[in-house]
């Protein structure tokens, strides 16, 4: 599957990279759905023998292929929610030198990145590669509620119901983009939604 080319944007918008093997004794890879393909591209027997691989399947069937790479530890979970506790535990036990690889949607990568930064890994040292959906994790700046998997702009906040404009301004600490009321100065005048990258 080809990778999505994100258009150039402002400086707070995260820039996702391309995974590459790095030196280190311990490696933690977290792949979500199509992110499995990015892992398959960099996997070598030597690297996987030092790797704890967590696969968030989200209904995809990459699991057996990943397990066949013979990672040191392997865990498949159906959703991000079912992987969170395990990820946090692995990070709390980890030592300096751990190499972290994230691949999948922006929402998953952003949330793991936040947990890893809290655990003590500088965000610039975390490798990422975007794969799969380009939907965004959005925070409503008004009610603070988070709406997952937003594909259209504007969209309706799933918490307070305001019509929100999708900004490129992104907070690593919240792992979300900012949504701001679009019709505050002209209530009811909400443009027809279209895809964020259309």
């Amino acid at each position, binding site marked *: 599957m080809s990778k999505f080319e994100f258009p150039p944007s*402002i*400086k*707070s*918008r995260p820039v996702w990279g391309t995974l590459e093997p790095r030196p280190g004794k311990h490696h933690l890879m977290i792949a979500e759905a199509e992110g499995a393909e990015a892992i398959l591209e960099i996997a070598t027997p030597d690297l996987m023998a030092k790797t704890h691989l967590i696969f968030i399947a989200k209904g995809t069937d990459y699991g057996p292929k990943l397990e066949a790479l013979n990672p040191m530890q392997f865990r498949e979970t159906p959703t991000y929610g079912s992987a969170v506790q395990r990820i946090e535990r692995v990070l709390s036990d980890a030592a300096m030198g751990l190499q972290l690889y994230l691949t999948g949607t922006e929402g998953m990568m952003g949330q793991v990145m936040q947990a890893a930064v809290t655990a003590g890994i*500088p965000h610039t040292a975390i490798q990422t590669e975007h794969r799969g959906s380009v939907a965004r994790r959005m*925070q409503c*700046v*008004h009610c*603070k509620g988070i709406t997952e998997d937003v594909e259209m702009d504007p969209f309706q906040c799933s918490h307070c119901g*305001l019509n929100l404009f999708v*900004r*490129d*301004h992104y*907070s*690593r*600490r*919240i792992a979300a983009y*900012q949504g*701001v*009321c679009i019709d*505050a*100065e*002209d*209530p009811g005048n909400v443009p027809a939604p279209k895809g964020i990258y259309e």
Partner: protein
Amino acid sequence: MTIQFNDETFREDYSFKNSPWAIKRFPFPFDKDDYMYSVNMEPHRGGREGSVFQNRFDVDEHYVSEMRDRALVLDNDPLRCQSLPHMTLAGWDLLELIMVAKSEDYPDLFELHRDGNRWRWVNKPMGIDDTFTFLDEATLPYGPMEYITRQAQGDWAVLDQRDDNLWMDAGMITTQADWSLDFDIGMNFFEWHAPVPLAHEKGIFVRALKFLLNIQQGAPARRLNWTMTVNPLLDTSPENYHKWGIQKTTLTPENIGAKQHLRVELQTFYRLPRSNAMVFPIRCYLCAFQDLMTVPKWGRRLHRVIRDLPEELATYKGFIDNRPMMIDYLSQFDDGLPTSPGIWPDLDTEPQLQK
């Protein structure tokens, strides 16, 4: 002089007003007849007597009412004041900086008595007399940054310095020009300025950061920034934009002089001693158009600046829709005469309006 504190509001009935004294000392931000971004920094070491630059942290007639407004904002939304865990030491640095400066610059209003780490702080305008142990959070009702910035006008961004960048890791932000601390906390200098148009391309932020990283103890710096606000509303937050945004549509040719305010930020920058962090106080001053027009030089100049401002800036600053009405109003106060250089009102030397 003894300051007569106003009893006024910055919401609902908007009883805020500037006295003639406050108008004359208003920090008019335009030193010439046009405006573009620049790294307009200068040392912050006093200034003209009576001006807002004279003291380290200016206290004026709005002090008590501004602090009351801040308390209301925090009651409604405590997330406007946040400090990441590693910023506590910087909070103590800031508490000391403000207490020392205020007690030295305004001895009739504030007193600081220190006996080792046992400190007594007296804030007469707010009726506070507290004794606490320096560096012991348990002896204050709030964390050190929140405690002191509930008693100091303007917003306070506290920036950690590391990896050749500044990080917005703590702040008390309730009088902001439409940005959210809760969203921006933890960002670096380029990230929290990301939404600002044009300035990145002009290299403004690269140069500004280089300057700020090298600000050292004992040598603070300052600059002015500005925007526009309809009604004297201090809390123009993104959080409440869905409530206040509509006010921008209430301007009419009849009420614009009273309702439209020029909003100026006196931004200062201090290196903090124990933490090596920086504090970035952002002090907001509001002045109604009709009050500004009592100074002939400002009337001429404001018209020219607003008329010629690039469209992106008027959009970013949120007044593109109201700009034609502003220009109509301001043009009445521009007779085409030249203006003297610099920001000062020059009331004695600049001619009265010739029309």
